[in-house]
């Protein structure tokens, strides 16, 4: 019987917490990121639950102070966006998987990689420190003049985001160089797995866009501390300028969030359908197209900001251009499933959930990109629902799906499929209850960032029931997520040992043991079509899938292989 992971692997290669804190191993760095990011996800989720709990009933529910509520929604946004979703997939999963998918030993710059992690930790600690320094009540969007006037801890949070920006830039730089320079012989661009195409496109955005955020934050701090007046009309400045600077980064940022998620979905769908991805080049090109067009549309957040009508029209037209590549991906995923052999494992369920939820998220973007409807829908709960469907129903679902997909590889353990499927369904149902109700409230005129809605009840009595339903959904969603944490943690201690290839994947990470050895591969593995499932069969002796080469026996590298 094949006994993986009792040998030397990256987890036991060296011991002691010190060896982890100064590690240069991309796999250990990825694991540290994963733990940190999931911890921040829980904290951000807690603030989200506080928001929803306050809105369960009209009038004060858990706090009679609107400023406290304003802190809840601001911190929920800041933590989720800067500490979870932007770093999320590239740092936690990309770091682990990218070099192995390339058949490489590590990323191009391992020390820079560790530096990225410590910048993340510094930014996270600073952001948490802001809670002690008075918190933040500006909304994560930090619009001037409110953010230049408020007494809350704008400087601390701006500093945190500034530092986190560098973590992001360095990771992007590392991934670009790694993909360019560390590919093995025989792996051209069109032999890269699609997850790597998505990480590459993401890295381009990270490098080009993030510096704009850094400068914007510096200008905000300069306005607050030095009174330079760039956003202050009484000194000749313009508040709307802040919005241009802010969204020039923050719109591409949403593509930093979604592209890696889409990359994961390509892997999930093809692996668990045991079938070659359909439309490889179309999907690859669409990732690059989304990354590039994403820089041209920031003004669609500002249709009613006072910017000129002409500029609004141009941004609206460009916004529709980004919809098409996303649609292309969805159709190609469906075509991949056609005539496949589909296993409904937990990762596949997450992949299917993504298609459903991101489908809604993306399609509702049409209402918002269209000028006449956006005037009505802007700054209502319709927008809140749209971005939760894309960011949570999209990125986070893909992230969790990726965690389940690569969990055996990362930990060497299998988790319970029964609990996995159950929790996925609970999360799916809870999510839809939470956020679909918000579309309805929004189009009926419920504004966002409202501490209370009792003034609207005489005209919209249904807002009470809709808010209550949304809150109940949030609790169901939270339970589903906590359940996921429980059975995954349980698998670390009691899970069956994982084979090298539990799912029958075709990409290179499934060719090394679970968990991988310290150096990933003793010798660079042979490279071909990354989605060639030919010959990958389930082997009872191995307890997992193996690729039967036409001329020889099953090949899997384990530590100690020549």
């Amino acid at each position: 019987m094949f006994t993986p992971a009792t040998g030397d692997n990256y987890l036991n290669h060296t011991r002691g917490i010190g060896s982890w804190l100064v590690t240069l191993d991309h796999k250990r760095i990825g694991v540290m990121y994963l733990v940190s990011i999931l911890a921040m996800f829980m904290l951000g989720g807690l603030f989200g639950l506080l928001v929803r709990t306050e809105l369960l009933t009209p009038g004060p529910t858990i706090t009679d102070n609107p400023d406290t509520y304003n802190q809840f929604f601001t911190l929920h946004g800041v933590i989720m966006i800067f500490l979870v979703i932007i770093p999320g997939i590239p740092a936690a999963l990309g770091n682990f998987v990218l070099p192995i998918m390339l058949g490489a030993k590590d990323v191009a710059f391992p020390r820079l990689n560790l530096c990225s992690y410590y910048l993340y930790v510094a930014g996270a600690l600073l952001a948490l420190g802001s809670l002690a320094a008075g918190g933040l009540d500006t909304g994560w969007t930090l619009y001037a003049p409110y953010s230049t006037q408020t007494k809350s801890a704008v400087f601390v949070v701006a500093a945190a985001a500034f530092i986190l920006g560098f973590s992001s830039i360095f990771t992007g730089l590392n991934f670009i160089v790694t993909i360019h320079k560390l590919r093995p012989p025989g792996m051209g661009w069109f032999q890269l797995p699609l997850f790597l195409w998505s990480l590459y496109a993401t890295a381009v955005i990270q490098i080009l866009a993030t510096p704009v955020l850094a400068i914007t934050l510096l200008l905000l701090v300069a306005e607050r501390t030095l009174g330079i007046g760039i956003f202050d009309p009484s000194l000749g400045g313009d508040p709307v300028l802040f919005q241009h600077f802010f969204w020039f980064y923050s719109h591409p940022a949403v593509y930093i969030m979604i592209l890696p998620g889409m990359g994961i979905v390509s892997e999930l769908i093809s692996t668990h359908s045991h079938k070659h991805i359909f439309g490889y080049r179309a999907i690859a090109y669409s990732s690059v197209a989304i990354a590039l067009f994403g820089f041209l549309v920031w003004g669609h957040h500002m249709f009613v900001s006072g910017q000129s009508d002409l500029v609004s029209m141009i941004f609206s037209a460009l916004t529709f251009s980004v919809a098409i590549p996303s649609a292309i991906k969805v159709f190609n995923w469906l075509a991949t499933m056609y005539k496949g052999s589909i296993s409904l494992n937990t990762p596949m369920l997450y992949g299917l959930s993504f298609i459903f939820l991101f489908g809604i998220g993306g399609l509702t973007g049409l209402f918002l990109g269209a000028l006449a409807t956006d005037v009505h829908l802007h700054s209502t709960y319709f927008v809140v629902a749209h971005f939760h469907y894309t960011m949570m129903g999209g990125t986070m679902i893909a992230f969790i799906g990726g965690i389940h997909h690569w969990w055996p590889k990362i930990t060497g353990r299998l988790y319970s499929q029964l609990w996995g499927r159950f929790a996925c369904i609970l999360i799916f149902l809870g999510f839809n209850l939470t956020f679909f109700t918000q579309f309805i409230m929004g189009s009926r005129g419920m504004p966002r960032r409202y501490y209370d809605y009792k003034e609207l009840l005489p005209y919209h009595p249904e807002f009470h029931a809709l808010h209550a339903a949304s809150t109940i959904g949030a609790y169901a969603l939270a339970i589903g997520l906590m359940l996921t944490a429980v059975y995954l943690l349980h698998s670390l201690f009691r899970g069956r040992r994982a084979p090298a290839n539990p799912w029958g994947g075709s990409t290179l990470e499934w060719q090394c043991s679970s968990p991988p050895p310290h150096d990933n591969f003793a010798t660079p593995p042979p490279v071909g079509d990354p989605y060639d499932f030919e010959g990958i069969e389930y082997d009872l002796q191995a307890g997992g899938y193996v690729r039967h080469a036409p001329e020889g026996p099953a090949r899997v590298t384990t530590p100690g292989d020549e």
Partner: protein
Amino acid sequence: MTTDVGASSLSPPLALAQDQGSFWMPPQASAAASEVDWLFSFIYYIALFFFALIVILMVFFVVRYRRREGVGPQQVATHSLALELTWSAVPTILVILIFWWSFTGFVSLRTPPENAYEINVFAEQWRWEFTYPNGHSDDELHVPVDTPVRLVMHTDSDDVIHSLYIPAFRIKMDIVPGRYSQVWFRATQVGEYPLVCAEYCGTGHSDMVTIVAVHEPGGYEKWLELADPLKRMTPEQYEAYAKDPQAFTQANPEFEGLEPPWQMGKRVFTKKGCKSCHTVDGTPYTGPTMKGLFGKQEHLADGSTVPVDENYLRESILAPGAKIVAGYDNVMTPYQGRISDREIAALIAYIKSLRE
């Protein structure tokens, strides 16, 4: 049912021709609303079609091609240029159509007619003030039905961004410090609809909710005329009113809805936005409460005490920064130039009535 100038009593019992809204939308109460709703439906049905297509195919494939013992995936092409072009071209055509119609709708939303009736809007943390052509200012927006109205909007340079949003009219526009912004509409349905702030502006953001009241033909003019009885009185009339309010009111029925000074003061307290920051039930808020205020010794931030008399109240309204009460910040906008002596007198009468 008399026209009560203080409160709006136009809640729609006129049920017959009233649009009550649909599943997704609030009532259609402006000319623009039906155009916006048409576009919403157009996008909705396209989105619904594609969503249904995607989900049905997904579920069908999961069932039809589920993994079965001994059955592997079937050999099919791994790409198809024809498919890629088709499923790129069709959505492209559809989004071009969506863009075109949303563009024409937007142009009409943003282009007020030449002869539009102008009302000024002042937004500040955290209240609305609408100023009508005759100088009357109010915390509610009143408009005549079937008349193009243009709102010219501003806030103070040291305030924050607000946004005027009337869901039933499908209109919204940010109000940015340092500039004027405008929005226009033509209300088509008599009734009362929410008017809300749609750009986060701090503590009282969700308190910035008022109404827009659409009057039937002739109703708006009547409302405006009667809206500010104190203002319309000649000096002689006002003197007579101040001396004996009850006798004056009875003798002068043309001042419909006129009430004793302390009640007129209560209206001013609302219309001028005082209640956005001051309570009348004893709760401290952004500013001190009015309950029990008159006649007490007030403790100021500089340690001194002052008696709260008529002069103190007048100064606190016109130049609030002169004396700041201990425990509060100097955030009140001075009302110098924005309130009349008669309104101040009415407010003083009202605050006196709140003595314990």
